[in-house]
């Protein structure tokens, strides 16, 4: 579904990613792990067009989307739940979710049943259901994370990018987030997950890539990576 070849990207003159290649087959959950500053978030930002790639190909569903503006990439079916949640704080929970479906409501993507999908999100995240009319800025961190994920899902995306959905959450909520990701995987949502909790990510994922200083240094089925002594020592020790 998503195939990245030799992606080079960065900020200004600083090159962060060096020839990153990875693949996310349809219906699978792929995780990108690595230490802080390895380029995980930068990779996602380059995929969704928030920063323009300097070179390389990003092929989604057969079409090269590298270099398109963010909104055009979203309209082609890539949803990105960004680092730091970035919910629209002065809008209600319901409006945030509706905006997730903006390309569907305005005809840029197949409409489907937006109202039914809204209800599906409220079923998946009951906490949001209780707070439909509340302003997103007044939600707790965990609720905002749920909202950011639900908002991205409202696109009915071909690929869902999740950037550190567990960041800053209490352990109980981190478990809840991973349980939700597992449920989405059962529903065969194609996902690329960036996570600091490498062990937890590899437990839920099908396949994993290890990113180090902007380069992919290891990759393989999640189970194999989890047992790889080098990967364990470098990334899994502290988060077990």
């Amino acid at each position, binding site marked *: 579904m998503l195939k990245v070849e030799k992606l080079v990207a960065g900020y200004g003159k600083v090159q962060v990613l060096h020839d990153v290649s990875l693949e996310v087959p349809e219906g699978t959950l792929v995780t990108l792990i690595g230490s802080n500053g390895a380029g995980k978030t930068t990779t996602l930002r380059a995929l969704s067009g928030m920063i323009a790639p300097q070179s390389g190909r990003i092929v989604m569903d057969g079409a090269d989307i590298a270099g398109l503006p*963010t909104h055009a990439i979203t309209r082609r079916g890539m949803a990105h739940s960004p680092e730091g949640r970035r*919910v*629209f704080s002065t809008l209600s929970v319901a409006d945030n979710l*509706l*905006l997730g479906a*903006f390309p569907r*409501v305005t005809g840029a993507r197949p409409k489907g049943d937006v109202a039914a999908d809204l209800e599906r999100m409220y079923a998946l995240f009951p906490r949001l259901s209780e707070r439909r009319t509340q302003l997103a800025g007044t939600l707790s961190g965990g609720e905002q994370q749920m909202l950011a994920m639900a908002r991205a899902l409202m696109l009915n995306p071909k690929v869902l990018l999740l950037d550190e959905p567990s960041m800053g959450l209490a352990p109980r909520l981190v478990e809840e987030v991973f349980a939700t990701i597992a449920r989405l995987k059962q529903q065969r949502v194609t996902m690329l997950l960036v996570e600091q909790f490498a062990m937890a990510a590899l437990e839920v994922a099908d396949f994993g890539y290890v990113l180090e200083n902007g380069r992919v240094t290891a990759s393989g089925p999640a189970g194999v990576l989890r047992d790889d002594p080098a990967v364990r020592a470098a990334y899994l020790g502290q988060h077990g």
Partner: protein
Amino acid sequence: MQILAQLLVSGIAVGMIYGVIAFGYQLTFATSKTLNFGQGEALMLGSLVGLTVVSITGYWIMLPIVLAFGLLQGSVVERLGVRQAIKTKSESGWIMATIALGIIFKNMAENIWGRDALKFPSPLPEAPIGFMGVNVLPMEIAIVVGALALMLAVEFFNRRSIYGKAVVATANDRDAAGLMGINTSLVITFSYALSSMTAAFAGVLVAPVTLTGANMGGALGLKAFAVAIIGGLSSGMGVVVGGLILGITETLTGYYVSTGYKDVPGLVLLLLVLSLKPSGLFGVATIKKV
């Protein structure tokens, strides 16, 4: 007492005009953190285009034409003066560019319509209505009603329609709005278009009372800017109250002190607000992240 009431009435009408122009400043500031410093010239152009069109079509058909002209003029300002500055994250490029465009518009207007003040036909009777001893011009009532109606219409659009919500989302977080599939560059162009449309509408509202002309924009634009600062660049309520404060203090000072000093209290208030509550009387303080 009657004189005071009379002054209040004129002050309110003038203040609503300031308020509606200031509302235009807010529209672009919300989405792009930039302002059109040629807002006064957008008002002047709207009014003069209205003057030319009104003689051909009559008043009511003139109104939508002027509104459409305002939308177009605002889009031009954004494309020529602002877009590049936003793209390069220039802190001041848009300031110089919108001022320059304003001067160009003013020169064009001077060449087309001349430098003199021109009379604008009033759609309503020009005889004042006596109300408890106070004379109110029908056009003054139209100014208050028209200004409020326009602001409410924009507010309604923002809250109810998906496109309005896209505007609010862009104002909230431009990057995140882009991730929703919203073309945020287009939203910013649109906010400039809407802002100039607001100014053009204010131009035709005020012209029957004040006369029109190529020089009408500068002072109005500047005072409305003061109102936007006093009321807060983020508060719709603030510009109405700020506009009324400035309009009323102006007319009161003009009568009780001297017309030569009528601009002083409002500007003193501006200085006070800037030093005591820079986000405006009704504004929410924001911290600029570096």
